[in-house]
C-alpha cells in the first residue's frame, strides 16, 4: 500500500483504476483517459494533485534565499499573489526539480514541488538554507486540487466560499489569492485556463465531490499526461533530470541569467552557453501509425542521434506526439526507431495545443 491522498476514498467510489505513482496510490483514469482529456479541453476536469508537496518559506531572508536557490528570479514577483515557474539546479547546472514559487507577502513564499522528488528537494532546500534567516516548512496538512478547462474557473468559483468568488474570478494568469483558508492560483499543467486550489486536507474530499456534483469531470494521471504533453509542458524525470541543464530541456526561458544575482548553477550555465549548448529539446509529430514513447532512439540524418523523452497519443490531434532531446543541429525531420522500424517524424515547436486550439500545422 502506498501513500494515500485525502481523496483516495473518493477515487475508489468513482471506480478509478488506481496505480502506484512514485509510492502514491493514484487514479490513472475513471473509465477512459481519452474522454477525460476531451472533457478538460472542452469543458472542465478536476485532478487530485495532493501527492505534490507544498513548502512554505518564511523569514527576513526568504527572498534572498530563493534568489540563490532558484534559476528564475523571485524578485520579479512584485505584488503579493504573483507566481513564477522555475527550475532548481545543482552546482553543475543539472535540474533537481521544476516548481512554481508564489510570493505571499514580505518574507513569505510558497513553493509547490513534484511528488516523486519532494523528499530529496526538502533535504536539498534544508541544507542550502543554512546561514539564511528563513524557516522551511513542508505542509503535509494541505491538499491540492486542480480544476482545468474553459469552464473550470466558473465552476470552481461556484464551490468556493461566497465572499471569495468575485476576487478569484478576477485573478490574472499566474496570480493567486488566499481567502477563507483556501489558496487559489490561476495556474495549471494542461494548457487550458483554470485554478489550482490548496486547502486543508479535511476540506479536500468535500470540495472535490462538490465539483463533481456540478459537472466537473474527475480526471486521472493518464489524461494529465496527454494534456501536459499537448501543451508542451515538461515532466520532471522524463524531459529533464539532474543529468541535463535547462538549456538542453527547452527551459532557457525560465532562467534569469542577467544581473549580479548569483544562484546555484549559474556559473555552470554560463560556461555551457560559452562553449555552445550541444543538445536541444524539440517537439515531434509522428507520421503514420504508431506511438512515440520515452527512450526510443531518434536518428537525425547527417547529424547524429537523440532520444524521445516523452511520448504519447494526442487525443486532440489524433496522432502521436512527443518531446525529444536531439543534437543542436537537428533540422525539421527525423526518424524514430519504434520497435525495430524507422518511422518519420516532423520537428515542431511546442505547444501542440493551447486553450483548445491546435497550435501547429498538421
Amino acid at each position, binding site marked *: 500500500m502506498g501513500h494515500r491522498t485525502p481523496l483516495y476514498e473518493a477515487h475508489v467510489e468513482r471506480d478509478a483504476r488506481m496505480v502506484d505513482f512514485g509510492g502514491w496510490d493514484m487514479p490513472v483514469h475513471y473509465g477512459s*483517459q481519452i474522454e477525460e482529456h476531451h472533457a478538460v479541453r472542452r469543458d472542465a476536469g478536476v485532478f487530485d494533485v495532493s501527492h505534490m508537496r507544498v513548502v512554505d518559506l518564511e523569514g527576513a531572508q526568504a527572498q534572498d534565499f530563493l534568489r540563490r536557490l532558484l534559476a528564475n528570479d523571485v524578485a520579479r514577483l512584485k505584488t503579493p499573489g504573483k507566481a513564477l515557474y522555475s527550475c532548481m539546479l545543482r552546482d553543475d547546472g543539472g535540474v533537481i526539480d521544476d516548481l512554481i514559487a508564489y510570493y505571499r507577502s514580505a518574507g513569505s513564499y510558497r513553493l509547490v514541488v513534484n511528488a516523486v522528488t519532494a523528499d530529496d528537494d526538502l533535504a536539498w532546500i534544508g541544507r542550502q538554507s543554512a546561514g539564511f534567516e528563513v524557516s522551511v516548512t513542508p505542509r503535509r496538512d494541505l491538499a491540492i486540487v486542480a480544476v482545468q478547462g474553459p469552464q473550470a474557473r466558473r465552476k470552481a468559483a461556484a464551490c468556493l466560499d461566497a465572499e471569495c468568488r468575485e476576487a478569484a474570478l478576477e485573478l490574472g494568469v499566474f496570480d493567486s489569492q488566499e481567502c477563507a483558508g483556501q489558496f487559489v492560483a490561476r495556474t495549471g499543467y494542461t494548457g487550458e485556463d483554470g485554478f489550482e486550489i490548496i486547502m486543508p486536507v479535511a476540506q479536500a474530499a468535500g470540495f472535490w465531490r462538490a465539483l463533481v456534483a456540478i459537472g466537473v469531470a474527475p480526471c486521472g494521471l493518464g489524461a494529465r499526461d496527454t494534456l501536459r504533453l499537448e501543451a508542451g509542458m515538461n515532466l520532471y524525470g522524463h524531459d529533464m533530470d539532474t543529468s541535463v541543464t535547462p538549456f538542453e530541456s527547452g527551459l532557457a526561458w525560465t532562467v534569469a541569467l542577467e544581473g549580479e544575482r548569483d544562484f546555484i548553477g549559474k556559473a555552470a550555465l554560463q560556461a555551457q552557453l560559452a562553449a555552445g549548448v550541444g543538445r536541444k529539446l524539440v517537439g515531434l509529430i509522428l507520421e503514420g501509425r504508431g506511438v512515440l514513447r520515452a527512450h526510443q532512439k531518434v536518428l537525425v540524418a547527417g547529424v547524429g542521434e537523440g532520444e524521445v523523452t516523452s511520448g504519447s497519443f494526442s487525443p486532440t490531434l489524433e496522432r502521436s506526439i512527443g518531446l525529444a532531446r536531439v543534437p543542436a543541429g537537428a533540422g525539421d525531420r527525423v526518424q524514430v526507431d519504434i520497435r525495430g522500424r524507422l518511422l518519420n517524424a516532423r520537428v515542431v515547436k511546442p505547444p501542440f495545443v493551447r486553450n483548445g486550439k491546435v497550435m501547429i500545422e498538421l
Partner: protein
Amino acid sequence: MSNVPGDRRYTRSHEWVRPLDDDSVEIGITDFAQKALGDLVFVEVPEAGRSVAVGDALAVVESVKAASDVYSPLEGEVLAGNESLGAQPELVNQEPYGEGWIARLKPASRKEIDSLMDAARYAEFLASQS
C-alpha cells in the same frame, strides 16, 4: 470485476476464442485485457491468408500506455482481420466480445479449442492472479 461470457474459450494471455457456425473461429481479447491496456489508439490486425502457429503474434494492440501482442491461441489460417478497428480501435475497449473482435481463423484442428480454458476456469484464473 470483469465480464467472462460462457460461450467461448480463453487463454492465460487473455485472448478468447468463439467457434462460429461454419468451421471457423473468432478471436479477440477479454474484458480484463482491455481494462488493463486502457484506451486503445491503434490495432494492427492480420491479413487474410496468413498462416499462424500457436503463440505467434496474431495482432498488435497499442494503447496510450503501451503496445501489446495478441497471441494466436490456435494453429490455422487467418480468414479475416477486423478492418473496422483501423478507424475505431476503441471498439475493443467498448465491445471486447462483440464488435471489437480482432480476427477470424480457420483452425487446423477443432479439437485444440477444447484444450483451452472454459469460462469458469478463466474466471478462476483471473481470481488467482489478483
